[in-house]
């Protein structure tokens, strides 16, 4: 059964130095508040996993929390580069970053295989692509019926997965809705999981019997953090702050402005500070 707890406790109990950590979210429902708590607690040597590392992973990389990253697209969507990610790869600042790079299809299949307790995923993919030359974790498997050769990648089984969801009930059952990405798979494939939610309610009331629900017994910790996905968004609660994504480009371009921003907005901040972003709900 999921434990309903505080963000500080959830992170301190479940995220350990050196862990393989997936903080997932495909544009929607990115767990910013939880990621900031990871930075605030000074977690080290993390191996980060995410299909679309965006600003949150730029922050984790720029503060030196990460030893490596497995990913398929590392940019600021619609804006441009992740400057901290580039600085780490191009100049090893603030430390070298080991990268394992895949395509979206491979990552999505690898999460799916992790949730399904399979050791690897297969896909019709990577044909003629140079990633196969630089990533030894892209192999092949042959169909025992047709002889066709498919690409194979290892399943993703993080030590801990962190996601943000819309709401949970008091037992810790969680509802996701809208662009649900790979979050369900990332939680089910992980050893431990933390879910921050916009609100904890008496009755979950999923709109459809087929809604995307994570039952309490498949989640380790549930934390109420209203606004916890900002500047990403929570469908039906508050919109994506595209303005912040645009503004980040300037903040992150320079090491000093980046560090000043981290100090002011993460180190001196608290999870409750995210609540102000939730107030903009229509």
């Amino acid at each position, binding site marked *: 059964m999921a434990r309903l707890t505080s963000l500080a406790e959830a992170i301190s109990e479940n995220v350990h130095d050196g862990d393989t950590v997936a903080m997932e979210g495909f544009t929607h429902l990115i767990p910013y508040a939880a990621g900031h708590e990871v930075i605030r607690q000074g977690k080290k040597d993390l191996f980060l996993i995410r299909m679309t590392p965006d600003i949150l992973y730029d922050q984790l990389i720029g503060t030196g929390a990460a030893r490596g990253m497995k990913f398929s697209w590392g940019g600021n969507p619609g804006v441009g580069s992740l400057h901290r990610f580039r600085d780490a790869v191009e100049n090893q600042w603030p430390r070298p970053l080991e990268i394992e790079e895949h395509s979206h299809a491979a990552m999505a*299949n690898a999460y799916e295989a992790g949730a399904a307790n399979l050791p690897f995923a297969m*896909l019709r*993919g990577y044909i003629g692509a140079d990633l196969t030359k630089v990533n030894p974790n892209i192999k092949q498997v042959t169909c025992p019926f047709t002889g066709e050769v498919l690409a194979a990648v290892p399943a993703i089984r993080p030590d801990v997965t962190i996601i943000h969801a819309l709401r949970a009930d008091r037992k810790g059952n969680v509802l996701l809705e809208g662009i649900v*990405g790979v979050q369900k*798979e990332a939680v089910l494939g992980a050893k431990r999981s933390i879910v921050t939610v916009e609100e904890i309610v008496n009755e979950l009331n999923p709109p459809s019997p087929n809604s995307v629900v994570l039952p309490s017994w498949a989640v380790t910790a549930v934390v109420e953090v209203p606004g916890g996905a900002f500047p990403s968004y929570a469908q039906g609660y508050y919109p994506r*702050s595209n303005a912040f994504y645009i503004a980040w480009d300037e903040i992150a371009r320079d090491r000093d402005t980046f560090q000043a921003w981290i100090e002011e907005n993460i180190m001196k901040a608290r999870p409750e500070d995210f609540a102000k972003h939730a107030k903009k709900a229509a």
Partner: protein
Amino acid sequence: MSDFTPTEMMTIAASRALTNDDVCFVGIGAPSAACNIARLTHAPDITLIYESGTVGTKPDVLPLSIGDGELCDTALFTVSVPEMFRYWLQGGRITTGFLGGAQIDRFANLNTTVVGPYDHPKVRLPGGGGAPEIASNCGQIFITMALSKRGFVDKLNFITSMGHGEGGNHRERLGIKTKGPTRVITDICMLEPDPVTKELTVVSIHQGVTRQQIIENCGWPIKFAETVIDTPVPTETELQTLRDINARTKKAHQGTKEAA
């Protein structure tokens, strides 16, 4: 210069290649604009799919990211990302995929990964995202990129997604059954692969552009097709539709800047 910009021409030319029956895998930027212009003009029943899982979207403003709430709000339905890549893209359900990149070569291979060596890159680009499998699993691929020597290069640093590989029947030899890139729409002209060699060849030139301009802006000695037509200029409707959606989009994305 007439009363439209090269980027407007590029977007509108791309939109015209789409039909009502298309199921499009849309990328951000120019492809998203092109697909939605098609939907708002000559192809109202076109199906637009974004890799975030939104199927049949009809956004009123263009998304900044691939997963803006607008895409889900206006979608017929939204699936998980594994389902999107497994059942819909790999499932062979997409007729047309849009790609772009930092670099393209004469066989429409694309690089969005690195400039310089992979292990010690001069510029680390975002990476392939969905491109490697979009390139092989969609029925055909349209590419939109402004023509420039920096982008249209003789040799790629890295093949992020395969177009026609080494040219000729290279795709077939690798067992790929889809067509690959059938059209490259730039800001000054349109290219198509030669039917046999698969080398990109100029087939249409936008208004006011000279052959010399095209030659000077391409990183390889670019060829012209036997018949090269003038790209029809944007209609009033096309231009107005594009400018309206751009204006709505600009307004929507300029919210108040806030710190997290």
